[in-house]
């Protein structure tokens, strides 16, 4: 992993270099306004946990960040690069979006591995074909990453023959292979059987500990409290409350957050 850039570990927003900044992000689906002006900043090494009820707009927020959904308004700055959008939110340059996306390692709730490729092929796909890394080098790195997530033995196996936990760990290796500036996790353990949740969380925990920057949407409150440097509570498309985990979880100010924490506890 010597090729990954040096990372500053920040213990909260405000320190270190800015990795991603979202300003006044809005998203409408027709009449329905799902995000109504969300702003957040993550510096290098920050782990921003995003919590909130079902339908509060958490997935939409992450999907807007890498333009899987076209934002309806606002501003997104990745690694200091302002993604140019038209007034209606559509990105001006496809190439710029594609380049920005290669800095964002997305991990999906339902893994979304490419089923016609082995784990190793999944992990080298983007480095080789999108980023132009020489194949031999990509394979070597991929083997290291698969070993890291405990899947050395499964490198030549197809995803369909693996458990959900193994697939999600492979998906994390695929995300790491692009050496992302920011990792985006959208409820990475929600589709897993309870006994498989732990193995995935432990991989994410290690990543947090080594100073990876991440936006982590999760329903695992204990885990969020443990790894997050900053917690955001999203309600109806707006940040209802945010702060360091101790404050948000132990001394919530908003009534809604109090209720929410009771229901998920």
């Amino acid at each position, binding site marked *: 992993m010597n090729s990954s850039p040096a990372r500053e570990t920040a213990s909260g927003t405000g320190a270190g270099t800015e990795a991603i900044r979202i300003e006044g992000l809005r998203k409408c689906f027709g009449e329905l306004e799902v995000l109504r002006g969300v702003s957040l900043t993550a510096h290098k090494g920050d782990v921003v946990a995003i919590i909130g009820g079902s339908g509060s707009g958490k997935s939409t927020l992450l999907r807007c960040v890498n333009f*899987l959904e076209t934002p309806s308004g606002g501003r997104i700055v990745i690694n200091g690069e302002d993604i140019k959008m038209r007034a209606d939110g559509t990105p001006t340059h496809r190439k710029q979006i594609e380049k920005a996306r290669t800095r964002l390692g997305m991990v999906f709730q339902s893994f979304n591995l490419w089923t016609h490729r082995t784990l190793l092929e999944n992990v080298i796909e983007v480095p080789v074909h999108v980023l132009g890394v020489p194949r031999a080098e990509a394979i070597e790195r991929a083997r290291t990453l698969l070993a890291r997530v405990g899947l050395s033995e499964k490198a030549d196996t197809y995803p369909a023959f693996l458990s959900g936990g193994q697939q999600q760990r492979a998906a994390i290796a695929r995300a790491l292979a692009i050496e992302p500036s920011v990792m985006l996790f959208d409820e990475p353990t929600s589709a897993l059987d309870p006994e498989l949740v732990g193995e995935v969380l432990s991989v994410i925990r290690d990543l947090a500990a080594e100073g990876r920057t991440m936006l982590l949407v999760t329903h695992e409150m204990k885990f969020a409290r443990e790894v997050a440097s900053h917690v955001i509570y999203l309600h109806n498309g707006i940040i209802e409350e945010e702060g360091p985990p101790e404050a948000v979880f132990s001394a919530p100010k908003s009534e809604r957050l109090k209720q929410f924490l009771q229901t998920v506890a």
Partner: protein
Amino acid sequence: MSHLVETLGLASSLQLLSLSPPGWGANLLRGLVNSLQIAFGAFGFGLVIGLFGAYGKLYGGPVVRDLLAVYTTVIRAVPELVLILILYYIGTDLINQMAAALGYGRVEINGVVAGIWVLGIVQGAYATEILRGAILAVPPGQIEAARAYGMPPFMLMRRVTIPAMMSFAIPGLANLWLIATKDTALLAVVGFNELTLETKQAAGSTRAYFTFFLAAGAIYLAVTLISGVAFKRIERWARKGQPSLRSGGA
């Protein structure tokens, strides 16, 4: 064995089918080669049309989608024989008119090219529907993951959508290929020397109708059987990564 051949009167049949004159075997083989050439060409041309057609139907604008809907509906509604006649005469007529406009005389139309063009357009309509269905069957998450990692659209199609849809498309495409091999017989009506017309001529000249049409039938059957083996292999390859439905493991 030779005794049996003689008593059934097969000796003369075998003589008629022999590859060297006075046998007509070589003519039949030439017809087969022509038929296969057209079938291959038309199938390939149809696949190209089908790929564009499927993407157009799924992601094209309203005009493109309407045009494609007209294309697939008309082609699938009108009997193939009629289509072949229409397309053949329209095609040759257009080419001759163009040639005349440019100051050339009548152009001799290459039968293989004409056959590929005519059958390819027919095949394209079916391929459009098969591939459209197959693309829709690809789990959207896999396409989304590719987009999320910055794959440009054409690479995404080549690296993710097409390989992932293969296993859904192969059974339909295998059928389409068999239809292509048999539809070549319809080209006999426009006087193209494919297997069926060669057979008809051989039969007509020798009056051995039964022998020759039986032989042609056997040849078509052999093509189908060999194709079946080939497609089984292709399907196994296309289904790589998917647990076997039959035995739970290869």
